[in-house]
């Protein structure tokens, strides 16, 4: 019996949540000024999406 309510996220939801949370942490740890942090967070998030979707497309021919 778990004390936590079960959470069912789709692949894309998990992917977006992961990218957002890690980008936020990277931005705060890697940059000091608020403006630089925002830019770094957005850039990191964009790269997460780009690499993730790129890998997904690269794997697509092997999925069937």
């Amino acid at each position, binding site marked *: 019996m778990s004390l936590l309510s*079960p959470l069912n996220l789709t692949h894309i939801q*998990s992917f977006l949540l*992961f990218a957002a949370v890690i980008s936020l*942490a990277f931005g705060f*740890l890697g940059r000091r000024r608020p403006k630089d942090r925002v830019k770094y967070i957005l850039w990191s998030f964009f790269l997460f999406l780009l690499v993730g979707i790129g890998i997904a497309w690269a794997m697509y021919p092997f999925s069937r």
Partner: protein
Amino acid sequence: MSQDSNETAPLAQPPASLDTAPPPPREFSPSEGKAWGIAVAGWLLPGLGHALLRMWGRASVVFVTVGLLVVVGASMRGNLFTSEGNDAFDTLGYVADLGAGSFYFLARAVERGGPDVSHAGGDYGTRFLATAGVLNLLAALHAYEAARGRKA
């Protein structure tokens, strides 16, 4: 002390050339001990290392992000590895999970149903939990470096 006295003062030891001079012995300074303490505190409770350095924004973000990853991972019934792993990957997973410090034991306490990786969500949860640990180790390392004045 004036410049003249510096020029005329006898040297205690003859100057060694840069090529042959041995590196100075590395001593354990109190500030280094403090930095290690901050790193351990940051590992035990995510964000505590930065909080001790009065970096409130970073402390709160580390606490929230690591906590969120652990809660989401445990809610998705990800696998929390134990020290009784069967192979090297289990051991690596245990080290990564243990990086979350006290949150690892908290996750074990609240996730009594055990992991369920028979569906994709459980597998994603395993990654969330491991990422929480590695992220917290990174934050603890950052706090250590900040305490030593290398980063700000």
